[in-house]
């Protein structure tokens, strides 16, 4: 019997904090609240990856570059602007590897609409 796989929407969350000074931490509170709402409401239909910086910064850069390429923004990757890219687009939420929201925390309605849209596409 063929096992039916549960289709999941993958969310990559890029919080603030990349500048290292912590002055933008306040923006993370509504972002993480939104993420916890998503996990509560969509349960196993979503997989959430919260990107870490610090010692994991290289991985964060690689993931960001992939997402930028997938979103048709490969030109930014080739510019080699490094942290400037992060600073310009965080907080950022990518859905299924493509930028969904950048530079600010979206409303719950806007995010849910995009997650539902992605679920429909993957079903």
């Amino acid at each position, binding site marked *: 019997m063929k096992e039916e796989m549960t289709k999941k929407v993958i969310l990559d969350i890029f919080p603030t904090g990349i*500048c290292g*000074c912590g*002055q*933008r931490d*306040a923006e993370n509170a509504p972002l993480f609240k939104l993420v916890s709402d998503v996990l509560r409401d969509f349960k196993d239909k979503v997989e959430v990856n919260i990107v870490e910086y610090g010692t994991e910064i290289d991985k964060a850069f690689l993931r960001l570059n992939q997402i930028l390429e997938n*979103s048709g*923004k490969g*030109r*930014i990757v080739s*510019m080699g*602007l490094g942290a*400037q*890219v992060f*600073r*310009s*687009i965080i907080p950022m939420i990518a859905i299924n590897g493509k*930028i969904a*929201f*950048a*530079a*600010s925390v979206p409303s719950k309605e806007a995010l849910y609409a995009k997650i539902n849209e992605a679920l429909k596409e993957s079903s």
Partner: protein
Amino acid sequence: MFKDLLIPPKNGSTRFIFLGGKGGVGKSTLAAAIALGLAEEGYKVLLASTDLQKSQNDILSQEIGSEETKVNGFDNFEAINIDAKESIRKHQLEVIKKIGSLRGDEAEILWLKEYWEKNPVLPCETASYNVFVQYMNSNEYDAIVFDTAPGGHNLDMIGYPWKQLDRLKKSIMVKREVADLTGKTAEIELLEKMAGDNIKAIEKLRSEETSYLLVLHPEMLPVYEAKRIQESLAPYGIPIKGLILNEVLPKEVCTNYFFKERRKLQEKYIALVRNEFPNMEIIEVPLIETEVVGIERVKRIAKVIMGG
């Protein structure tokens, strides 16, 4: 004449004066003397110090705040000890003023205002440099004399508009690329205005309006230091326009063997400096019999400089 490097240009623009040199050569004292000398000639002057030691409090014998403070006895002479916290606030106010002039989506402008009120986004160590850029764009004074900490800090500050412009340009490039995703265009306009301030500061630093003066003791090591600073400023296109040879022993007091010999040594290095920097305005400031503390003593030094 050396004085021509100090007096404000005739076209009404502000004269910006920087003093460079090793620690302990008397930059702060001479900055105070130049500022005071210009104020005595009737110019509206600001003495802006980024020196963490707040030496100007001792030199001018009064508490100089982190806001422009009137120097006792003058209506046209102000001094300020630029501190990081106050600099961040000033920079925020300046940016918020700029946001007020942006045309764009109302919601984005509101977001920008809130963002800048909550997030200064300035590392503390560079906060005072932003205030320096603001002063370079100000027309409020006839002359601004910058009293900076020695060596590297001085050059860090001078080079800041270049570094900041580079950062802003990169940020503008990225934000333009993602504007379709973020919907933020007013922010790009804001960053362009901020970049404009740095461009103007760079133009002014390279212009006739700016006088970068080097202070040195007439000894061997400071002469090498002068050469090194000259080389460090060259990439920015900022020339050293004048040299102040400080604490030169007055000939008339060098009557015994010890002082005659010291004077002879100084004369040797004065000649060397004049030979090494033939196209520069050079002034000699004598060592006086007491420490230069208090307005009256600063006036003595000012008189020498303004007469030169």
